[in-house]
């Protein structure tokens, strides 16, 4: 971190206020004095950042009225073109026949989830996936599919966590029916997320062991309310 001791000189040089002799001396010093040249480069970098910041601020001001949060947006089918998920339906049905009826029923739930992305955003995975069935389900799914389910469960959990945090900010004691409902919902989603993560880490060699509390940087004061 340079101190900017020569800031007046830098400004004069950049504005073009130095005499020809001073300009030559300045440029020679840039070549020969590393500390001076580092300081100058840092000053230029700061100027570029300031230019970017001021331009973006103006743009933000100008665009402020151009967006509408309630506008209908396009669905984004994340994962539609992913490896096994993109297998033709006929191949999938052959695979499904090999499985037990119970696993097939579970798979229907999973495939509905996999093709969920945004249309059923209000239906968390925990609502249609029984936690006890996850280990059995994991045996019949690929790592890609487990990753998709995991990502979805992660989104659900983050949403539930945010909803609870907001409610507790409004009502710090957190004893009302809404706080209780949100806490139950968050806990349910956390359990599902942990269970999917466990199944995923047991099956897939590249899965990273993941601690939910640490991973999401939970505010432990929220947990103390229980």
């Amino acid at each position: 971190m340079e101190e900017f001791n020569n800031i007046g000189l830098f400004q004069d040089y950049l504005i073009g206020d130095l005499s020809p002799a001073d300009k030559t001396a300045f440029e020679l010093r840039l070549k020969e004095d590393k500390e001076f040249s580092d300081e100058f480069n840092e000053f230029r970098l700061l100027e570029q950042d300031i230019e970017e910041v001021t331009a973006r601020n103006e743009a933000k001001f100008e665009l402020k009225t151009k967006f509408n949060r309630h506008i209908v947006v396009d669905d984004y089918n994340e994962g539609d073109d992913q490896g096994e998920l993109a297998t033709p339906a006929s191949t999938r049905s052959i695979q499904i026949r090999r499985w037990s009826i119970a696993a097939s029923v579970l798979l229907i739930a999973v495939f509905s989830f996999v093709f969920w992305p945004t249309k059923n955003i209000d239906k968390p995975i925990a609502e249609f996936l029984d936690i006890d069935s996850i280990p059995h389900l994991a045996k019949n799914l690929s790592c890609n599919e487990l990753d998709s389910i995991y990502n979805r469960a992660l989104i659900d959990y983050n949403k539930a966590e945010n909803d609870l945090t907001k409610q507790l900010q409004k009502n710090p004691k957190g004893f009302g029916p809404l706080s209780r409902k949100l806490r139950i919902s968050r806990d349910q989603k956390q359990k599902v997320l942990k269970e999917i993560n466990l199944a995923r880490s047991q099956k897939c060699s590249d899965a990273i062991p993941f601690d939910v509390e640490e991973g999401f940087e939970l505010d432990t004061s929220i947990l103390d309310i229980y």
Partner: protein
Amino acid sequence: MTTAIQYKKDIKDEEIIRRIKQNDNHVWEILQVKYYKMLEIFVIKNSGSTDDAWDNFQETMAALFVNVSKTNFRLTCAFKTYVYQINRNMWLAELKRQKRRPIRIYDNEDNELADIDTSDEVVEKEHRIKLVEREIEILGENCRKIIRLYYYLKKSMKEIALEIGYSNDANAKNQKAKCMKQLKTKLDHGRI
């Protein structure tokens, strides 16, 4: 029959870029229709809320506007990837600013986004810009004015002196140097 929404979804990238350059009023709605969901999913997957996603989207659009408006702007990847990349860097820089370091980054599962630049440098640059923005916000009013007049409106020192009421351009120059030094000191303290 093509509906308005279908039209917005199907509009070509070149057309969007052309409209951004022309500062067309409707292009922003088109961008929101086409890309908002993709950008929101990235933020939510990476410890953000829907409100964070909305704020980040607006920051992304401002940066997009500035970049595309530059005369030397050249697109080196698909436009969708470019928009995703800005949103991604912006959100990771915001997490860094809040000292919330993600254990793992969850990118969208989308083969079209396979060539994004995941290097730390791009996030680092965005982080630096966020810090500079925050420190400028808390400078004194005159410093903020000088910075805006000089770096955004490209006014000369003489014009700045007239506008703010300094007796001559040398005073304006001295004042600007003081503001820059103050900003630098604040940034250095913020980084410690």
